[in-house]
């Protein structure tokens, strides 16, 4: 059974609250009483707890979003296979004669531009988006430089035949991940060239030594990233409000593509595994992804990540930071050019990193530790 977690009413005068913290992610198993999120009014910050156990199927609002009282914040189901219903509209609140009201979208715009609500002229019974936009255009001062709302440019063009449908849980996860980077992290990219041949020889030798069927190169590069994260704890961390959260274990996220879907499988406690154990653990998750038997907990909780588009022939790419991570490393196909140096096959190794936590030199140091195989 699927049930919604609704936005509570915290005081009689506020019909919308701001989602200040989300403590769960899609696919996470929750128990009765687990902390799900925190919502804020103008006067107070309140926690929302799970009223049942189950899996988080979908989030209906992102961090910082304005959510109407009575609307669904997230959905919980007995299993990840259950279908998420269309969120019901929040019950309409009766406008008060002596109080200015605004639609939720208008309220989001007001907060985004830090506008005094009382200064906005409006017609009708409440302030609408058009009223706010008109007011912003008429203001003598230049607009603020804050980022526009993620949905502002996503309005479908009118007059074009289109079909509208709910996002799948996979698509919602993608939106959530990309939105986190856009709204929260200060994502920056750095890259360097390394010798693909050196890693190729090392991985082939490792495969022969351990009689492996599957190419261990990417797994071994991922393990090198894990070792770098152990040596540089700031790489294995994130920022939550005013807190620095340093993870005590390294959970390596690794993208697996199967039937045009990308899974981020997570090798938990990867820092406790030696290279062969790590290769086997990752291979096992890859097999499960192909079989469609991944458990929800095997796709969440990554603290650092590696992704590769080498299979697609891509020579460089800038990946998106998974929420709650400080770095994701991108691996690509060798460049189709010859090096002046013999036995040097150039290949780009890149990293998207959260510049709130790391600077470029630190990110480059991590790449430096992965650029060559272990001695």
């Amino acid at each position, binding site marked *: 059974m699927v049930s919604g977690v609704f936005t509570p009413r915290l005081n009689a005068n506020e019909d919308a609250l701001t989602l200040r913290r989300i403590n769960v992610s899609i696919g996470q198993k929750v128990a009765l009483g687990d902390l799900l999120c925190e919502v804020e009014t103008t006067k107070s910050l309140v926690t929302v707890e799970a009223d049942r156990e189950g899996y988080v199927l979908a989030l209906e609002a992102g961090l910082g979003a304005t959510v109407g009282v009575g609307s669904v914040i997230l959905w919980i189901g007995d299993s990840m296979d259950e279908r998420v219903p269309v969120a019901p509209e929040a019950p309409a609140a009766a406008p008060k004669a002596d109080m200015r009201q605004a639609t939720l979208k208008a309220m989001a715009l007001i907060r985004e531009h830090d506008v005094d609500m009382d200064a906005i002229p409006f017609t009708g019974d409440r302030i609408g988006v058009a009223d706010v936009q008109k007011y912003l255009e008429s203001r003598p001062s230049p607009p603020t430089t804050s980022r526009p709302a993620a949905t502002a440019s996503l309005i479908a063009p009118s007059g074009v035949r289109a079909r509208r449908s709910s996002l799948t849980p996979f698509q919602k996860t993608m939106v959530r991940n990309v939105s986190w980077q856009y709204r929260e992290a200060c994502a920056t990219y750095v890259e360097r060239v390394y010798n693909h041949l050196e890693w190729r020889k090392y991985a082939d030798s490792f495969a022969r030594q351990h009689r492996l*069927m*599957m190419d261990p190169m990417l797994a071994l590069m991922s393990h090198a990233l894990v070792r770098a994260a152990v040596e540089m704890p700031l790489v294995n961390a994130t920022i939550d409000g005013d807190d620095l959260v340093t993870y005590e274990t390294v959970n390596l996220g690794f993208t697996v593509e199967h039937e045009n879907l990308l899974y981020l499988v997570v090798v938990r406690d990867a820092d406790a595994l030696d290279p062969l154990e790590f290769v086997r653990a990752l291979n096992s998750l*890859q097999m499960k992804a*192909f079989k469609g038997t991944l458990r929800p907990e095997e796709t969440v909780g990554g603290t650092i990540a590696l992704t590769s588009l080498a299979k697609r022939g891509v020579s460089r790419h800038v990946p998106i930071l998974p929420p709650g991570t400080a770095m994701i490393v991108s691996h690509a196909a060798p460049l189709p050019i010859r090096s002046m140096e013999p036995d040097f096959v150039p290949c780009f190794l890149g990293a998207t990193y959260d510049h709130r936590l790391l600077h470029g030199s630190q990110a480059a140091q991590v790449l430096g530790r992965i650029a060559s195989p272990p001695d």
Partner: protein
Amino acid sequence: MDAYKTAIRNKVIELARKLKIDASDLKDDDVIPEMGYLDSASIIALILWYEEHFGFELDLGEITVDSFGTVNAMAAFAQSRLNAGQ
């Protein structure tokens, strides 16, 4: 046994073809991971097909070059597992 080998060989050739690689000259004692016909994803696909085709599941520890590296090895492994199950 020959039927096993033919089915396995054909599957390797089919998977390689999807990667635009011609593996039609694959010999039964060629070491598949060393031939460069299949990438990691294709080897996973080969293993999953093998499990389904022969009707048994494999432990990850069983999937080594010694038991799966060649068409001959894969056929012999299937034969021994199916005999043991009878």
